[in-house]
């Protein structure tokens, strides 16, 4: 009777046990080799040459030396592009929210009115997300010319994809019991939406939107490099003109904007939780 109660693995090793263990070790070894092979092919494909980094360090040091000290006399001229950068992100995020919310309702399994609407909405969300914001910016620069407007449009369209997906997932994970209870009281569809669905998911949607705004501020810096205005455009101009002291000032401003946006967004999201 005692033998029946003994844990199975503690008995004498059988032939089956030892074969199983050997197979497990072989599998671990094969998995480790596979990881090494994947990393090795990545190094080959990117033509990694660490020695070039060491020999070229003088060039980098030279640029850093020429960037010091930052040219703070240029500060007033950076204020307008800084505001543009933040506003491109705000504009893009606002467009993204307005379009993504109805799309997300169609793209959520528990809310969609039909299969066609579901696949249609998922298709739009997938496409706008798959095309990078930089490509959208190039397209809009071609359409409406240089400046912050194409940058805002690019971030808006790309945000539709990112926000649409996250909004739809939030709606799908929502507790449906209060919604069904409201339907049972005889409330109309629009009332169920405004009195049940919106209060339930609003904090999550606001949290996601704030996170997106934080991401968009970072993206709007880069979009300036393709002519979409803001501080990124000023940074590119300063680099092309070898004005490295202005470059270092702009990098400090970018650092402050990114860190500030990140902290404010995180604090607000924490309050909403």
């Amino acid at each position, binding site marked *: 009777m005692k033998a029946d109660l003994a844990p199975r693995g503690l008995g004498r090793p059988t032939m089956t046990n030892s074969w199983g263990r050997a197979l497990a070790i072989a599998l671990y070894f094969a998995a480790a080799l596979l990881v090494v092979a994947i990393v090795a092919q990545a190094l080959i494909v990117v033509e990694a040459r660490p020695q070039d980094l060491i020999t070229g360090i003088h060039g980098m040091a030279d640029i850093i030396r020429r960037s010091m000290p930052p040219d703070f006399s240029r500060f007033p001229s950076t204020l307008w592009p800084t505001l543009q950068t933040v506003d491109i992100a705000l504009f893009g995020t606002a467009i993204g929210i307005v379009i993504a919310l109805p799309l997300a309702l169609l793209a959520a399994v528990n809310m969609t009115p039909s299969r066609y609407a579901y696949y249609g909405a998922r298709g739009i969300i997938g496409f706008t997300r798959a095309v990078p914001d930089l490509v959208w910016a190039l397209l809009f620069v071609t359409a409406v010319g240089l400046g912050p407007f194409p940058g805002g449009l690019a971030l808006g369209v790309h945000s539709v994809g990112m926000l649409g997906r996250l909004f739809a997932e939030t709606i799908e994970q929502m507790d449906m019991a209060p919604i069904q*209870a409201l339907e049972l009281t005889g409330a109309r569809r629009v009332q169920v939406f405004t009195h049940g669905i919106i*209060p339930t998911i609003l904090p999550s949607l606001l949290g996601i939107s704030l996170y997106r705004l934080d991401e968009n501020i970072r993206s709007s810096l880069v979009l300036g490099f393709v002519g979409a205005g803001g501080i990124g455009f000023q940074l590119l101009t300063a680099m092309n003109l070898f004005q490295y002291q202005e470059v270092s000032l702009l990098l400090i401003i970018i650092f402050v904007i990114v860190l500030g946006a990140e902290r404010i967004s995180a604090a607000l999201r924490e309050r909403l939780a």
Partner: protein
Amino acid sequence: MLRVRGLSLRYPNGTLALTDFELTLAAGEFAVVLGGNGSGKTTLLRCIARTVKPSAGEVWLGDIDLSVLDGEKLRRARLALAMICQHASLVRRRSVLANVATGTLGRHRTLWTALGGLPAAELEAARGHLAEVGLADLAERRAGTLSGGQAQRVSIARALAQRPRVLLADEPVASLDPEAAEDIMRLLQRLARTERIAVLCVLHQVELAYAYADRVIGIRAGRIAFDLPKSQLSREAVHRLYLPAAA
């Protein structure tokens, strides 16, 4: 008040969940439905509330047959029928008062209510319903902070705000401790007597049925096993309800 005639539900896989169910419930009557797991108790309530369409039979609420209605007509007819479930299903981030007042939404078709607002008069009436369930002082609390028993009382207040003639309760005390369960049963009994609401309550607790029901309906494999006034109900009949199918 509520008449169910020959109600049957066959699932698409062919299983008969409910067979020829007959039931009449008068205003002010408090009936409890007992039965084992999977016997068809919840299915019966869902068919009556028309959250599922029965395969056959009629569900008369006053002089309206719910079983033939759909869409807007069904929504309007169903206003006289409220349902509470095992879990209170409140909107957790809204106040207790707002949750109660949402029970009145079906009667209003204004832009204000479509935009998420609630009529001032209904909010005032909701305070009265909260007082009826003994929670007047919690009106401004967020619903997500309530205990299970309090939340269930709020869901009953929401059902009252609907001004129903029939109240369906699907295991309303299943997740509550014994004291809170007794409170809820006393409340339902009082509402049936004072408000003249016909209450049909599914329970698993046989003793609560003995203590509070006017009538007990036994259901087994989707059919009525008995439908008796509490005074005529034998312990043996209830015991047989829970025996395995082969017994």
